[in-house]
């Protein structure tokens, strides 16, 4: 009786496992598509909006600070610092969110497509973790010390994020139709004119 109960439990457990795996597979197609779109969007936001040197340099520009301190009274200076701090923290939070999305994508999906080696995956995971930690550290420093507290850390974080974006871009190249082999043989001009 005990043996029957034991094997029944094992059977039920296996069935449950099978159901879980099947469920994950069927939801996978939609989930994968969503993850790919999210990752592409995160990459575009990071590369096109948050990391280009123009915007970062302007947000953390000492030139603006010097102008305000030399030409305005303290209440305006305080307003300026408050506003710039708000923008700087918003910026680093957005970078953190974008990097997190990319990391989710790499952890969940990219390895199946990009055929990354274990060593590369480990290195990538470490880089992601370090970057996320750096973002939080920068955010904390900005919160405590204001927008001009850690210019070096901001610069390093931007550089590291840009490097990770490049890696992610390579992993995501299979998403771009014009890179698909066979279509690239002179067919781009045809498709453009039609």
């Amino acid at each position: 009786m005990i043996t029957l109960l034991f094997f029944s439990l094992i059977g039920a457990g296996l069935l449950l496992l099978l159901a879980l795996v099947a469920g994950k597979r069927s939801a996978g197609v939609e989930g994968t598509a969503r993850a790919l779109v999210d990752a592409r969007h995160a990459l575009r936001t990071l590369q096109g909006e948050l990391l280009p040197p123009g915007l970062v340099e302007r947000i953390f520009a000492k030139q603006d600070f010097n102008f305000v301190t030399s030409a305005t009274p303290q209440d305006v200076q305080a307003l300026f610092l408050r506003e710039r701090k708000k923008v700087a923290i918003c910026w680093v939070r957005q970078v953190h969110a974008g990097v997190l999305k990319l990391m989710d994508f790499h952890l969940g999906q990219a390895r199946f497509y990009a055929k990354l080696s274990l060593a590369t995956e480990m290195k990538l995971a470490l880089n992601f973790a370090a970057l996320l930690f750096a973002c939080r550290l920068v955010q904390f420093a900005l919160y405590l010390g204001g927008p001009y507290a850690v210019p070096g850390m901001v610069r390093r974080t931007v550089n590291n994020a840009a490097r990770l974006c490049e890696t992610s871009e390579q992993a995501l190249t299979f998403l771009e139709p014009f890179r698909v082999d066979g279509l690239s043989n002179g067919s781009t001009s045809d498709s453009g004119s039609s």
Partner: protein
Amino acid sequence: MVKFPAKRMDVRAAAEDMRRRTLSRIARPLDRLIYLASLRDYNTGFYYHEGLAARFSEEAVCEALSDCHREVFRQLLFSPLEDLVAQLEAYVDSTNAMPADFIAAWQGLEPYRVSVPAETDSVSAGFFFSNLKVALAILQNRLRAPRLPKPTAWRQPSLGR
């Protein structure tokens, strides 16, 4: 923002036309931004320009003006705060409004919030609004400053507050 895809060549030509004939005659980027934002229908987000529409398709005009708008916005976004203050001051002077009224209206209503192109990311938009807020505070301070006897004396009262 675009109703139907327009031919890229038409879009480029329409944008070039807009830059050459109109935008080049508007001296400051801030004025250009306000002008371009005024060409956009707030209900639909589409841009309209009669002169351009006579030569290009509506879709090409809409896309071209959207491109110009983004271009001018980025130019302003990357301007130093000092430049923005100077542009805002010149813009205030170019209107018929009293500077104090203008500043009060802009601080209260924040009409500049509708001047950014659609699909502007939140950090860029926030940065632009923040800079304008500070620029308005600087202009407001300059308006108050001449009433005081000495140029350096105005610092004292605000330090104590």
